[in-house]
């Protein structure tokens, strides 16, 4: 008997026809499998390649989004930071201006970042602002005389007390070293007086009427003359303004007339000044409109102060027994007017001189309280 295993072995051997066909089948199967594997591998490779590329595209997109987000954040933070700095600067400037107003006769030089400060004073509107930002600060009652714009990295602040004859208000003058004040000498001593009054730190010059004024690259030239008109001004018209002063009293600390001109020597308007502080206000303001608006604020204050002193004089006249003192208080009451305007400069000045005289009379040997 033949062994079954042996029989199978013989049948499956490559020499047996059956075996041969089996081998061929296996080979065919193997070949098919290899082909399938190859195709599968190829497909997988493609899928991996595509997947990797998609991966990178996805990373780029997300990266771009994150980058754009940070750029937007940076830009908004920069804008906010600038606004914050502007607000802080304006608030600090307001505090410094208000507190330096209280120290009469003081001159301060303030260092700033390079900015342009604009000043506006019109009917019912009065403010100062940083031109680089839209940040403004209203100052409806602060008496500040300044050019329309001050550019630079420093600011001069000068404060003087306006007296008529008692203290009424603190006038604040703002300027910087980029603005030049040219005072033209005159036949009287008014120009020299004005030149000596202006602080040494500001950029000023005192020249004769035929001396030339040339452009030295300042932001603005303010030409002040009394009786002699300057003839040799060679500065750019856009950067120049003129002020003609006519003094009616015996010195510049009295009253008089003012006329403002632009660079083309066209008249911008006429007005008056009352006391030296008011004249200095006209010197530091470039336009008649600004000067007039600021003087209105000063007169609002004058009317209130006059009411207080009027009331005080009235109380004193009722409480004091001494008849000579009573007369002085009563005449003071009449001299103190409470609804005043700049056009009444002459009357106000004369009344102020009278009140000063009455006060001096009270000081001399009379045992009565002073008017002021």
């Amino acid at each position, binding site marked *: 008997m033949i062994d079954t295993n042996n029989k199978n072995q013989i049948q499956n051997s490559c020499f047996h026809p059956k075996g041969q066909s089996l081998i061929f089948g296996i080979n065919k199967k193997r070949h098919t499998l290899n082909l399938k594997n190859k195709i599968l591998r190829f497909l*997988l490779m493609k*899928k*991996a390649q595509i*997947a*990797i590329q998609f*991966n990178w595209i*996805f*990373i780029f997109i*997300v990266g771009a989004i*994150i980058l754009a*987000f940070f750029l937007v*954040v940076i830009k908004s933070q920069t804008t906010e930071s600038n606004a914050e700095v502007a607000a*802080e600067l304006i*608030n*600090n400037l307001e*505090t410094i201006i*208000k*507190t330096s107003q*209280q120290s009469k006769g003081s001159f301060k030089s303030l260092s700033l970042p390079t900015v342009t400060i604009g000043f506006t004073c019109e009917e019912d509107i009065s403010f100062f602002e940083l031109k680089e930002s839209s940040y403004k600060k209203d100052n*409806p*009652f602060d008496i500040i005389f300044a050019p329309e714009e001050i550019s630079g990295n420093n600011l001069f602040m000068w404060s003087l007390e306006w*007296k008529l004859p*008692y*203290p*009424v*208000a603190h006038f604040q003058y703002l300027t910087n070293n980029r603005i030049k004040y040219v005072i033209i000498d005159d036949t009287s001593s008014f120009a020299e007086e004005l030149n000596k009054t202006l602080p040494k730190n500001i950029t000023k010059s005192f020249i004769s009427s035929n001396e030339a004024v040339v452009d030295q690259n300042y932001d603005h030239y303010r030409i002040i003359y009394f009786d002699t008109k300057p003839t040799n001004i060679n500065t750019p018209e856009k950067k120049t303004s003129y002020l003609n002063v006519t003094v009616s009293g015996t010195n510049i600390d009295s009253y008089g007339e003012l006329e403002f001109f632009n660079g083309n020597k066209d008249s911008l308007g006429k007005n008056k000044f009352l006391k030296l502080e008011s004249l200095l206000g006209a010197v530091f303001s470039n336009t008649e409109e600004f000067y007039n608006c600021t003087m209105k604020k000063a007169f*609002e*204050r004058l009317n*209130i*102060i006059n*009411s*207080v*002193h009027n*009331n*005080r004089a009235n*109380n*004193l006249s009722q*409480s*004091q027994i001494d008849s000579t003192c009573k007369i002085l208080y009563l005449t003071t009451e009449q001299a103190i007017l409470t609804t005043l305007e700049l056009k009444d400069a002459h009357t106000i000045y004369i009344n102020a001189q009278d009140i000063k005289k009455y*006060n*001096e009379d009270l*000081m001399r040997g009379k045992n009565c*309280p*002073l008017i*002021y």
Partner: protein
Amino acid sequence: MIKRKKAQVQMGESFAIIIIVIIMIVLGLIFYSKIKSEDISKKELLFDELSMVELAQIAGALPEIHCSSADVSDSNCIDLLKINALEEIITSSSASGGDKTAFYYYREIFGRGKIMIREIGLDGTINEWILYKTDNESLSQNTIFSPVSIYNPSTNTKSFGMLIITKYT
């Protein structure tokens, strides 16, 4: 199969990294905004203090109430007759129907607050004058007390007093 798994895991990694980055950015923004709001609160406090200093300087140097002897002003001295006069002017101005000019003027200077003068006599009597007061008082307020001498020109006497400046926040 293994390669497919590997690609999927790699994509998963990218997702995870991006999510973590986004979470970190959000946490960073929250942290930054907290710090910024603290900074703003401190600045607000600083500006409040600055405005108090400003007000104290202005009120203390008002020519309307300061004593003066001719051209010489007496520091830390307030004239009693001037106080009475100014109080009357501001009160009548703030009353309904009155010319509001003076009240608006002082409201611009003093803002929301109260300016009061308290006289303390030698016998302990206390007299008070409210120079200025806004209607909308507030419990949240800053107050500065400044000692002054109060001069009465009618009797030529001086007494001790306090200038009390209150600003409502």
